[in-house]
Structures are given as C-alpha cells and as structure tokens.
C-alpha cells in the first residue's frame, strides 16, 4: 500500500520527458495556501454545525454538515486532480468554455429550478446533485477571460480591446442577472477589474471604466426607477439601499440586518461560546447557514473569532496574489488574479453586509457558507492556483 502508485510511475516513465516525481510535486505545492484553505473549510464546517444543529426542520443535526462535507470531499479530489494537470492546456479551449458557460446559464434560465426567493431559477437538477450554475460560471469566466486577455496582451494600449472584454463579461453577467442573481453579476465585474489590473490595463482606461461603473450604478439605482424603467426588481432595489437605514423595514430585510448586527455586536470580544449563540439558535437570525453565517461566528466566537477568519482569508488572498506574481506566464497570472479578486470581493461584500456597511446582495462567504456548488468550484479554483504554483516553482528549480 505504501509503495509508489504504479500508474503514476508508469506514466512518468513513459510520457514525461522530465519525469514525474511525487516528491517534487509535493515540494512544489503552495502548502500555506492549501493549509489556509483547509483551515477555512474546517472552520466553516464547525460554524455550519453550530448554525444548523438546532434547526427543527431537519432530520439530523448533521444534515447540513454532511451535505457540505460531501461537497468538500468532491472538491478536494478535483483540487488534487487539477493541481496535477497543466492549466495551460485549458487555454486553448477558452472559446468552448465561454460558449459552454453561456449555454449552461441560458439553460438555467429555461429549465432551472427555483428557490424560496421570488421567481429565482438558480439550480440545474443533476442526478445526485443540483448545480448552482452561477457558481460554476465564476470559474468558467475566469478561465475563458484569462485566455482572451493573455491572447490580447499586445493590445493593452487599445481601449477598444478593453471595451471588448467588458462586453465579453457582460454577456454571462446579464444571464446571471436575469436569474435573478445580482450578487454573482457583481462578482463577475470584480473578477474583470482585478484581472484587468494584473493584465496591465492603462490607468486612463481604468479611469473610464470606473466612471462608467459609477454612471451605470446611478442609472440603475436612481434614473431608471425614476423613469419607471424596471431593470432592478423592487425587492432588489430595496435591499441595495436598505443597509443605510435598516429600521425603515423592521420586518423584512431590515429585520435581517438589524438581527445580524445584534448577533455580532452581542458577541463582544470573545463571543458567547461555541453553540451558545442565542440569536442564531432561537432563529432571530435568518439565513444563518448561508449568507449570514458570519453573524453566527461573530456572536459565538466574538471579535477574536472574526479576526481569525479574516486572517485566514487574508492569507489565502495573499497567496493567490503571490502566485499571480510568481506565474511564469500571463495566463496563469490572470487566473490567479481573477480568483483572488472573486474571493476578496465576496468576503468584503458578505461580511460588510452582516455588519451593516454593504448592501444586501445575496453573496455567500467563500469556503464557509453552506452550498456545495460554491464550495466545489472554489476548491477547483484553488486547484488551478496550485497547478500554477507547482509549475512556476518547478520552472525555477530547473
């Protein structure tokens, strides 16, 4: 059992010019990144257990934890497989990936299944699994956009090309937005901006994009509603502005925000103790296992627990950006940047929402919020980062 794996050995002997060495692969992995991600998902499982074990509508206290753990195992298997493969091989399929992405999102709109929320179609039912396609779409977008940008490396001075990438991202964004899933659409935007920055976008171009974003937001939030044009649904508009004055809606989303702040605030410095959060277990805190899981953490483990989580995220983002710097090719660099941007944006917006400084957009906390699709996809993304890391370090070793 402890002998080297024969198949791998055969493969290296037969096909690898440089020879595959398990030792070298293991040495080349970014263990800090892997360790931080492992710590995050474990932390997340414990929080998920605390948040859900007392729910009355589930058959076992481990119902959610078990489901999440299945995603975790699947995700880690995929992470390892991807980290072993060469990410550059993917680049040539960028157009197919992009097309598949659009197709899947389109399919979701047509045959997707809904949730409790008003008319939202977010899942495609697969055997044994229902896939939240917008989560997969994030990774597919990173992979395809990285391809496009690395191909267009010479076009940095052309604003038309920048504009093209904006439209390139806008297409899946609109499809996600129509689900409706405003949060993921915004994550796409964050991915684009991060990747453009690393890609080397010219500062004036960045300025124009920034101005365009501000104007677009103003149109969506103020001008269109004033003209009676319904781009954002009423509830979305309300949610977006509610965090400024949660007391204006003490029963709906405002109630969520208020209860979330109460939960976190009452956790104080060291928290009420694991499994002892009253806001969570007496159901004052809605969506405590998904979008508001950070409030469970804040209540039970306090400021210290929150700092630990944020510290782990910072390590992950730091390692992602480091990989972006280390990557020997632009494609890998852009993938790493996209992943880093998505994680940073999601953490900031999600935590910001629970503490009342960001609007309610329905963005989950990466690696921690309940949801197998998101977990698997983020672990796959880490797999790509490891693949990039392994190859850049291997290159340096030679």
């Amino acid at each position, binding site marked *: 059992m402890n002998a080297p794996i024969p198949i791998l050995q055969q493969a290296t002997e037969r096909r690898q010019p440089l020879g595959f060495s398990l030792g070298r692969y293991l040495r080349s992995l970014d263990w800090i990144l892997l360790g931080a991600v492992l710590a995050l998902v474990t932390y997340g499982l414990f929080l998920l257990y605390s948040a859900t074990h007392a729910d009355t509508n589930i058959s076992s206290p481990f119902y959610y934890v078990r489901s999440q753990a299945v995603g975790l195992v699947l995700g880690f298997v995929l992470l390892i497989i991807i980290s072993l493969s060469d990410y*550059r091989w993917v680049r040539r399929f960028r157009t197919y990936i992009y097309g598949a992405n659009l197709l899947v999102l389109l399919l979701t709109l047509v045959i997707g299944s809904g949730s409790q929320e008003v008319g939202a179609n977010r899942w495609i039912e697969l055997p044994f699994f229902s896939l939240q396609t917008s989560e997969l779409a994030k990774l597919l977008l990173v992979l395809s956009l990285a391809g496009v940008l690395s191909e267009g490396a010479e076009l940095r001075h052309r604003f038309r090309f920048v504009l093209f990438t904006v439209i390139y991202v806008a297409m899946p964004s609109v499809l996600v937005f129509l689900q409706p899933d405003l949060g993921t659409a915004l994550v796409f935007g964050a991915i684009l901006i991060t990747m453009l920055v690393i890609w080397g976008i010219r500062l004036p171009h960045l300025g124009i994009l920034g101005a365009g974003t501000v104007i677009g937001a103003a149109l969506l939030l103020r001008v269109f509603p004033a003209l009676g044009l319904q781009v954002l649904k009423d509830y979305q508009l309300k949610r977006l502005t509610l965090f400024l004055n949660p007391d204006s809606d003490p029963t709906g989303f405002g109630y969520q925000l208020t209860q979330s702040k109460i939960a976190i*605030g009452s956790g104080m410095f060291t928290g009420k103790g694991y499994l002892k959060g*009253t806001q969570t277990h*007496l159901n004052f805190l809605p969506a405590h296992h998904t979008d508001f899981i950070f409030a469970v953490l804040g209540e039970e483990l306090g*400021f210290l627990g929150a700092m630990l989580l944020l510290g782990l995220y*910072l390590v992950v983002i730091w390692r992602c950006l480091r990989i972006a710097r280390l990557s*020997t090719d*632009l494609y890998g660099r852009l993938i790493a940047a996209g992943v880093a941007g998505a994680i940073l944006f999601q953490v900031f917006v999600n935590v910001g929402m629970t503490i009342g400084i960001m609007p309610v957009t329905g963005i989950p906390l990466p690696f921690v919020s309940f949801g197998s699709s998101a977990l698997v996809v983020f672990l796959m993304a880490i797999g790509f980062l490891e693949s990039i890391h392994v190859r850049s370090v291997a290159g340096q070793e030679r």
Partner: protein
Amino acid sequence: MILEPARKRRPPEDESFVGIRVGVLLVIACVLFGVIAFRLWYLQVLSGDSYTAVAANNRLREVRVEAPRGVIYDRNGKILVDNRAGLTVGILPMAMFSPKKQPEQFAEEIRRLSEVLEVPEADLLAAYEKAKKDPYVTYPIKEDVPRETVVAYLKEHSDQFPGVQVEKAFVRRYPNKSLATHVLGYVGEISQTELGQQEFATLKMGAHVGKDGVERTYDSYLRGTDGWKTVEVDAAGRPKRFLDDVAPTPGANLVLTIDADLQQASEDAILEGIKRAHEQGFVNASGGAVVALDPRNGEIRALASFPDYDPSLWVGGMSKQKFSELTAPESHQPLFNRALNGLYPAGSTFKPFVAAVALNAGLVTPETIYDCSGKFSVAQQTWRDWLKQGHGPGIDLLTAIKESCDVYFYNLGNLLYQQEGPVLQDGLRQFGFGQKTGIDLPGETDKTRVPDKYWKREQGKSAEDKLWKPGDEINLAIGQGDLLVTPLQLAVALSAIANGGTLWVPRLGLRITDASGNVVHQFEPEQRAQLGIDRQILELIEEGMVLVTSEVGGTARIAFEGFAIPVAGKTGTAEKRPEDDYALFIAYAPADPVKEPEIVVVAIIEQGGHGSSVAAPVVRRVLEAYFHTQSGGTQIIPATE
C-alpha cells in the same frame, strides 16, 4: 499529467510592473479588511454591551403571573366574592399574519376570531393596535372563555389562528349572584389613566384592579403582588425554556361589616315594598334603597339598592350590548347605587332633625303648643297639612312628631326664618346633611344640598328668585323644597340621635386577613363630629319617635303592630313633582331607656306612595331579620299619612 515548466518567454513590456500591480491589490485587500476589522471593533467591543442588552431583550420575555385577588367575606365569614380559574384568549401580534404583507389572511383571521369569540371585529382591531406596541407580549382580548366550545375549537384549528393564545387566569366568582352588588363593585383591566396614577405605580398594562365598590377602595389590599416568569422564546415567540420564576403573592382577604343575611333581607324587603306600592296603586314604583348601620360605631350592616344586576357580567369585560341594556331607561339604572348616591327630598323624616335644631336653639320647649287647623298662612301664602281637617288644637312637639303634624313644623320654620343667621341650616349641617359621609366607597356624590340664602342667591335666575323667603325655610322644615339628601346621610344623621350625639364615618371595611385567617389590619371606628346637642333633647326626640310606632295615632303604629322591641321611627312621604310621592321610613331599635340602640334602618321606595304603608313595613322586615323575630303577618296596612 504534465509537469513541464512554463517556457521562459520574453516578458511583455508591462511584466516588470506586475510586482507593483500585485502590491496595489494586496494593499487594497488589506484596506478593505481593515475597514471590516474597524467596524467589528466598533460593533463588538465599543457597542458590545448595548447589543448584548438588545439580544437579551430579543429572547427573554417577562411573563406576568397575576396574583389571585383576595376573597371578600361578610362579617360572619360568608364568602361574598372569591376566584375561580378561567381561560383568557390573547393575541401575540408578531406571530399573527401581518396586516401589511398578508392583508387577506389577516382580515380572515380577525373575522374568524370575531366569530368564534363573539367579539366585534372593530374591538379586535382596536386590541391589535394596542397590542402592536409590544408585539412580543400576549395581549388579552377575551377573558373567561368557555373551555368546552371556544377553547377546544381554537386548539383544534390552531393553524388558522397563528398568534392566538390561551392562558389560565383567575376571574371573580360571585356565589350569591347579585347580593350586595353595589357594595362589592367589580374588577377590570387597568386603564391608561390609572396606569399613570401613583396608586398603581407598580402595575403594568393588562393588570386587573378594582373599578368600583370595595373592590376599588381596598384594591391595594386585595390585589396582591404579581409574580413573573422569565421565558426564553424563539423568533416566533414560542417559549423554549423557563429561566427564572417568582411566585405571585395572593391578595389579602377583606372582611366587610356587611351581614349577608341582613343584606339579603334588605334586598327582599325592597322588592316586597315595591310590590306593596303597586298593590296600593303606585304602579310607577320601580326602585328603592335600604341602609342599615350600627349607631355605636358606624359599621354598615346592609346597603341595598334596587334594581340591581349580576356583577359577573363584568368578568372578562362587559359587552357593549349588555351595557346598553343595563343603561336603557326602562331598566331604571341598575348600575346606580341609590343608597349611596340617590338624591331625594327627606320629607317628614326630616322633622326629628328640625325639631332637635329648634329645641337646641331654644326657640321652642317641649311644652310649646300650636293649634293645627289643617293649614298655615304667612305673607299671603298658605300651606296645607297632609291631614285635611288638621290635628286639632294644642299640638306639642311629641304629638307633632308622632302624628307628623305639618302645621307645627310650618310654625317652627317661620320661627327659624325670623332668627338672625342660618340657625336651621347650621344645625342640619351638624347632622352631616349637605356633606359627604366619608364612607369607604368610591364616587360618593357631592350634590346633596341644605339650601340657604347664599345658595339661593347664587342659584336664582331672577332677582325675585335670588331671595331667601319664609316659604323656603318653611318648606325646609318639613324636608321639602330644595333639600336633597341621600339614604346614607339620613342613616348617619339618625345614628347620631340614637347614640347620644356622635356622628360616625360609615364604614364597610371591618378587617384585613391573610390566607390563614390572621388579622393583618383592623379598621377602627372613626368619629366625624359630636353634635353638640344636649342629650336630653335627643332623648325627647327619641320619645316622640317611639310614639310614632307605638301609640294610637302614630303614623307607623299599624306597621309595627306586635313588634316586640321598642322602635323609634319616623315616616316620610316626600313630594317630587311631577313624579308620584316617594315613600320613606327611618328607624332605630331598641329604643328603650335601658338598652343601647343597636341598629339604624333607613328605607326609601321611589314613587312608592306613603311612608307609613309602604316604607315602614320595609324597615320592619329588616328589623325583624336583625332581631330574628317572627313576622307579624302580611296584612295590608292602611295609609295613615
């Protein structure tokens, strides 16, 4: 599985800036995380205490456990009011359908609830508005709901009634039905105004307090101290566990001076009196009152007013329909306590007091005589005696009282008018007329009146009207004119004659006892004043009043035929135009030089006709009950006055 290193290509022109770009992103990440950390520090460390308080407030409900109210006993230990377990239906607004978000379901729930509880929808909506102020607290909407039908239905269909809860509560029980209802009063939910009063400072919304009668006067004793339970609830308001518990302290018991048997006899006597009045042709007779009190200390033995009502109607709040029934004109105001607040001319029952004042002022002596020809004239005005042919010549004071000779008292009135200053009025006020008696019941009237020239000057409309004329004083001398007294005032004033000159504060509270019967507080008799009238004068008055019931020609002799104990009494037939005459009788017994008088009884039958034939038998019946003597038969007593 390719582990081939990436080919070293010539870096594109901007590759050198990668470090800077990555650095910028890292700085942005740190700044964003710093913002979060700063905000968390503010929420969790700087404002942590206040959020902790809010979280506690979220999940902890203090549920009031109402203390059972004290029992009210009569002086012999008979229960007048106690408690029984009842079920209260309440609403928890936050668990109900939202009137904004689910207007149809909300309206449907209110409609069904209204149907099941038989409470108008408008009342339920009003209750909801009140309850909404504290949406986490159950607000009672109907008390004492029958278990078998309504509560069972609510429980069976609980899915249709979210937020509707049934709780156990104590409600008042009246084992003797309407007995002494005006004395007892009733209990109800504390009102907004009461909540602001010092007396109820410790109480919260939803508490029950005495609203009238001794329930109100002795509320602080009867009420007890509510206990509370601390309950942890979830977001839907469902209790999860009890954290803390303080048992309620039951209220103390109240023992009244009332004798339930005598009270019953008094109430029966009024009914009989009304019946007798009807038989004598006074068909408008519909109400009456009896006051019986102990002249030795002011303790009230019976205080009856008719018509009465069932006090259990107040349990759980009186319905609007019942209330309008009770206040309809044809019901003759059953809620009104006539013994306490009925305003009447005293009629001839006033004569003993007028005589005492005149004797005390030295205006007449027992030997002073007036001739009675049946009429009396002064200043071109003529008054008639009730006895057309007159009582004859040489009427002295005793005879005047015995036969109720009006002409004698017209002369007294005329004499009193000629005095300097309000001799009569001052004397009458010494007996307590025109003032509150100070009884331990809420809402005693301040509308009683002993008219004098000042009152007339203020009240009169024309210059002529403002003048106090001989006629006013003469009318007052026979208890007519603008005089207004209550039965209770008459009883208190008569007590002062009976006991030799002490004016007591009449009292219903005897003592307070705890659950094991130990005396917690004893209420002592309270003297209001001494008459300052010579004892011999009072004895003379008594002599005259005894003649009323004992000697041939006495206006109540027939009514008291065969009564074994000497009784001092006085009849009265008060005129209150355009209504029929009011029948009055006042008496005390035993009226004998050796024994101390024990009981004073005052009776009035509204529009009952004659005091002698209608009111006097009522008093006799009460005195019989007091002395446990046998009834002297039910013969019809001819009118003498």
